[in-house]
């Protein structure tokens, strides 16, 4: 496209945005006309997106105190067990310290206003830099609300109180998390590996995991050649 045509299209788009479609429709060259129309459509879409995103930026300022369950129940936990939060409250999760997690969990299940009777998922995460994080997704069947609890520990001391006796499903969840990440769940009554054999070395979902060289005399080839 020549510079002249570009300039012409820019002018036409400007007019089109203002509501004047006449000049575009009056172009005789078909290719040029369709190019101008495409440019106009693009400009209109961009304007629409800009209009949609603008009010969203202003919204949080006038919002009332959040009724997000992670904010609401995080505050309740902080009131009941002062100093147990590990980070500021936010919309996605509640960050707790491992120390009195067992008491908090017991309270979360027994408190009538919360009544988290279902542990939907428990898993782990290796955040790198020596930090491992256990995550718990809790749901209440009676009140139909859910929260996510996260507890960060270090690799040197990956101890977290076990909630296996509070939510029985936690038995296998915690065993799998131990199997894959090497957390230690204090108070778990059957603290064994879940999937891998008992004599497996290392925890495979840690970032620094290294595949063992042999397993019971079976050589594990590390680098495969010829198939790349």
């Amino acid at each position, binding site marked *: 496209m020549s510079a002249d045509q570009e300039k012409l299209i820019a002018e036409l788009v400007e007019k089109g945005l203002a509501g004047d479609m006449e000049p575009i429709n009056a172009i005789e060259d078909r290719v040029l006309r369709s190019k101008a129309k495409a440019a106009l459509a693009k400009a209109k879409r961009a304007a629409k997106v800009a209009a949609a995103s603008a009010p969203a930026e202003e919204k949080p300022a006038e919002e009332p105190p959040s009724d997000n369950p992670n904010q609401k129940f995080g505050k309740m936990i902080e009131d009941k067990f002062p100093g147990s939060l590990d980070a500021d409250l936010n919309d996605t999760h509640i960050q707790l310290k491992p120390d009195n997690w067992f008491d908090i969990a017991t309270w979360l299940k027994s408190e009538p206003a919360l009544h988290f009777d279902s542990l939907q998922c428990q898993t782990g995460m290796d955040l790198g830099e020596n930090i491992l994080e256990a995550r718990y997704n809790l749901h209440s069947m009676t009140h139909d609300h859910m929260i996510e609890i996260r507890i960060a520990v270090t690799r040197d001391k990956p101890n977290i109180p076990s909630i296996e006796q509070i939510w029985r499903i936690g038995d296998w969840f915690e065993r799998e998390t131990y199997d894959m990440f090497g957390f230690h769940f204090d108070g778990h009554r059957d603290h064994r590996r879940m999937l891998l054999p008992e004599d497996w070395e290392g925890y495979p979902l840690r970032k620094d995991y290294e595949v063992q060289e042999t*397993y019971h005399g079976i050589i*594990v080839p590390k680098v495969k050649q010829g198939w790349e």
Partner: protein
Amino acid sequence: MGLLENRFQDNVVVAKLDKLIGWARSTSPWYFQFGLACCAIEMMATAASRHDLERLGMMPRSSPRQADVMIVAGTVTMKMALRVKKLYEQMADPKYVIAMGSCATSGGPYWQHGYHVLKGVDIVVPVDVYVPGCPPRPEALIEGLLKLQEKILEERPLTRKMA
């Protein structure tokens, strides 16, 4: 057949015992019901009425002691590898192994990054026939089994092998 020919009644067949044993073995290789992953579904389909393995003289056995052929159908993990070996050792001679599908032949999709998968079942047991596919269609498995039958048919169990 030389000297023996036409000396007996019509319903008498004369054959070398050596060949006869090979023929008998090749037409009734009972296989070990041993599914490990998705390949097991194809193996079941092969055994079921549409493809019907029994017309080849094959029937599934649930015990390694009654089986002649072990079809390793599926991904063999490190944990399972020890058991595969143990089961193979419990089978009575003569015994054969078919590696069915990519996982059993080479590790398949876990070739490079599967820390827990045995890269081919031939690392722990000797394999007679490899059947490629992910998973192989029943026709492919039958092809493999026919190849195995050919192999058994050519065996001469009574002939002394030259060193």
